[in-house]
């Protein structure tokens, strides 16, 4: 019994807030063995990240409080260990990949140093630590790793940052790796590489992997066992196969049923003229060409998905079109007018029509404002949308639509889980009732049931109000369900564009083909076959 590498028994965590006590985790128990991968699936906000933080001793106490339970690492109760002991374990024996990479990287230090520091903090020499950091950055696929070591977090794309976090956590080959949504921002090819890297490490060192994810495909591919959480409780455990085929708890069943990629594909209708015409858009970051001349059109009420390699410039397009950064060259015509030459004042007027959900939801929410203030800010800025008396009602409605409850309106961003924050960001964008919403990985942190609910909502808005979506995503099944047309990007260029059907059924570009092939299926059996085939291929 005690030879489990890590065992959590009856763990409960709660938070004190102005509105009272929030019970985030309510007596959960599970265990993790050497060399094993345990997936934690579950609803967004069900306590997955909080329980992981408890293991790492990272909960702020107060306002957090661990009210019961034990966390046994190699038989020792971590909750009784001293801070110094736990510090020594952290990073070396137990490592963690955080859900929100941008906030968790120190903005003022070069990433190379930050990765190397893990090793240095545990007594390794500087040269060794840096060598290892470089090797890891290459392993996780950071382009031009040596030069990138000296760059700062804000100079990387979302996916790249996530990979930097992974490299940081792996630096000392820990016994336990807690990976909190490690692949949410990664395109499937990179995701596959990362998963195989983790697997290799497991084979090499017997590392136990605690994989927190909502991606059923990842569970099917990588997990030995899975735990399903809901509302701070563990509702079901089992192997992926057992769960997939014989789930007993209604939530698990709901989750599996919600797995995307099974619906009918949409057919783009020709007709409405283009509302956004992007031509030859280029962006140069001090010699590095992030965008090398991108052109595409968008029509009213259409969903244009942008998929592609991590770091290929997807978010950059969004930032340039919205004038958060200045393009090096090119044009972006919005209903005939070039956005890129507008003065800030003119741009301000247009902004209401174009909204964005940012890739890093945490950083995009003002920590000083309550959720109510964040959402209603739209109406403060554009008072003609809604009379003040109706704000509370509408905030409650929006929160409900994205799967949050009206009570959440009083809380502040830091009191939410990753997925919850993402939904707040979505609600904020919707509050403005714009003509175009740019969703940058807007549903990547949501569990599939909520994801389905949100996608449904977006679909309804598209159909009823004619809102167009520029949908940047890496999750192919979601794209398949939701998009009208798809752009595929690689290294700052559009390699292919076409209707969903065309892209998914007759991909032309080799990169698209690779992308589709790397996609994961939520059925563990299907995934096992694919895996066997891939291994066989590699074996030859």
């Amino acid at each position: 019994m005690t030879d489990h590498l890590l065992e959590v028994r009856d763990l409960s965590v709660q938070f004190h807030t102005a509105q009272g006590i929030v019970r985030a985790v309510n007596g959960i128990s599970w265990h993790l063995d050497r060399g094993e991968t345990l997936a934690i699936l579950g609803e967004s906000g069900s306590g997955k990240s909080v329980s992981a933080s408890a293991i790492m001793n990272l909960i702020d106490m107060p306002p957090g409080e661990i009210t019961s339970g034990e966390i046994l690492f190699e038989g020792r109760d971590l909750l009784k260990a001293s801070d110094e002991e736990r510090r020594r374990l952290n990073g070396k024996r137990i490592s963690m990949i955080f859900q929100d990479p941008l906030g968790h990287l120190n903005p003022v230090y070069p990433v190379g140093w930050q990765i190397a520091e893990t090793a240095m903090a545990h007594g390794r020499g500087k040269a060794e630590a840096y060598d290892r950091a470089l090797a890891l950055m290459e392993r996780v696929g950071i382009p031009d790793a040596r030069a990138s070591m000296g760059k700062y977090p804000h100079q990387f794309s979302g996916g790249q940052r996530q990979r930097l976090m992974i490299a940081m956590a792996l630096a000392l080959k820990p016994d336990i790796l807690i990976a909190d949504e490690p692949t949410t921002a990664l395109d499937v090819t990179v995701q596959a590489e990362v998963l195989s890297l983790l697997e290799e490490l497991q084979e090499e060192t017997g590392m136990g992997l605690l994989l927190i994810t909502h991606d059923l495909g990842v569970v099917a591919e990588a997990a030995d066992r899975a735990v399903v959480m809901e509302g701070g409780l563990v509702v079901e455990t089992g192997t992926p196969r057992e769960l997939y085929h014989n789930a007993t708890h209604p939530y698990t069943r709901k989750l599996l049923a919600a797995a995307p990629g099974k619906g009918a594909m949409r057919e783009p209708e020709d007709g409405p003229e283009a509302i956004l015409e992007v031509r030859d858009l280029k962006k140069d970051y001090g010699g590095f060409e992030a965008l090398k001349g991108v052109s595409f059109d968008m029509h009213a009420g259409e969903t244009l998905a942008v998929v592609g390699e991590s770091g290929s410039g997807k978010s950059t397009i969004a930032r340039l079109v919205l004038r958060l950064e200045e393009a090096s060259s090119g044009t972006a015509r919005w209903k005939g007018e070039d956005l890129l030459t507008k003065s800030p004042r003119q741009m301000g007027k247009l902004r209401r029509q174009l909204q964005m959900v940012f890739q890093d939801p945490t950083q995009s929410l003002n920590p000083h404002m309550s959720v109510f203030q964040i959402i209603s800010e739209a109406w403060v800025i554009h008072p003609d949308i809604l009379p003040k008396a109706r704000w509370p009602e509408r905030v409650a409605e929006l929160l409900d639509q994205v799967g949050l409850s009206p009570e959440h309106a009083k809380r502040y961003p830091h009191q939410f889980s990753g997925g919850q924050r993402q939904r707040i960001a979505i609600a904020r964008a919707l509050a403005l009732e714009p003509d175009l919403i740019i969703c940058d990985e807007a549903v990547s942190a949501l569990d599939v049931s909520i994801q389905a609910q949100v996608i449904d909502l977006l679909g309804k808005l598209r159909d009823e109000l004619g809102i167009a979506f520029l949908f940047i995503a890496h999750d192919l099944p979601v794209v398949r369900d939701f998009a009208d047309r798809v752009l595929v990007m690689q290294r700052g260029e559009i390699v292919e564009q076409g209707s969903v059907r065309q892209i998914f059924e007759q991909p032309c570009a080799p990169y698209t083909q690779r992308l589709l092939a790397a996609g994961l299926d939520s059925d563990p059996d299907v995934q096992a076959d694919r895996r066997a085939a891939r291994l066989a291929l590699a074996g030859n």
Partner: protein
Amino acid sequence: MSNSTTHSTGPTDQQAVTPEAAVAAPVTGGPSGLRRILRMLVADKLALLSALFLVIVILCAILGPLFLAEMASDTNLRARNAPPFELERGFAYILGGDALGRPLLARIVMAARNTMLIAAGAVAGSMLIGSTLGLIAGYAGRWTGEVIMRLADVIMSFPSLLLAVIVLYMLAPSIGNLVLVLAITRIPIYLRTTRAEVLEVRKRMFVQAATVMGASRRRIIFRHILPVILPTLLTIATLDFAFVMLAESALSFLGIGIQAPEITWGLMVSQGRAYLTNAWWLAFWPGLAIILTTMSLNLLSSWMRVALNPTQRWRLEIGGKKND
């Protein structure tokens, strides 16, 4: 831990029905508005004391001159430099008498008005102008920013004393003019602090998010950037209170500031300076008043810093339960 409900109750029915609400649903309702602020104040004993002290000071400033003007200016050479804590001359002499035998307590109370007018006027003025200019310099175009910053350089290198001599020589030493001088000399600190922070904060994602929503510059500055900078500005401002009071004292000492028979704490301190080694209480009590006021303001601003910051506020909200 005592008051937390036991964890073993497990999931309730309600949780099973709407799991989302279960985690989020507050167990106890939270108070709102003024009550809540008061409760947070009570949670920090030092801040509470500070607030009380400041209320007293403000009351003195408002009421003191109405009741004590006579007593505070009546010379009585027999009580000259009367030592403190002797009650035979009456309670007014509890802090002793000054060089003309006027009761120090009455004079301190009396001086509160001028002192507060000058200090609050100068600090508020410099903070307002300084941080506004700083916001503009940090947020506006290169040119405007550059001009403002160089202006700050000029003010920073313009000796305050010279400014005082110029203004007070040309415009006569009045409280208003003194406030003007002191305010101008303190502008650069707020200006530079604000600008430096704006440069960083404006790059943050939530500011960009607000831009995307079409927020006006003004809104971005005041609603998004300012709250991040405000705590720092407040910290500086509260300490500047002391600085201004003492600077005023130094000017009086040199003969350019407020002069007798007007009184301020600073003036009392500077007049008591000569007696420091013989009748320490002359300079000590007004000095103590300055220290206590500054300290109260600062402790209150520390408290405010926590109370205004949602990620820190729990320190006050869970108050007595668990403090460290």
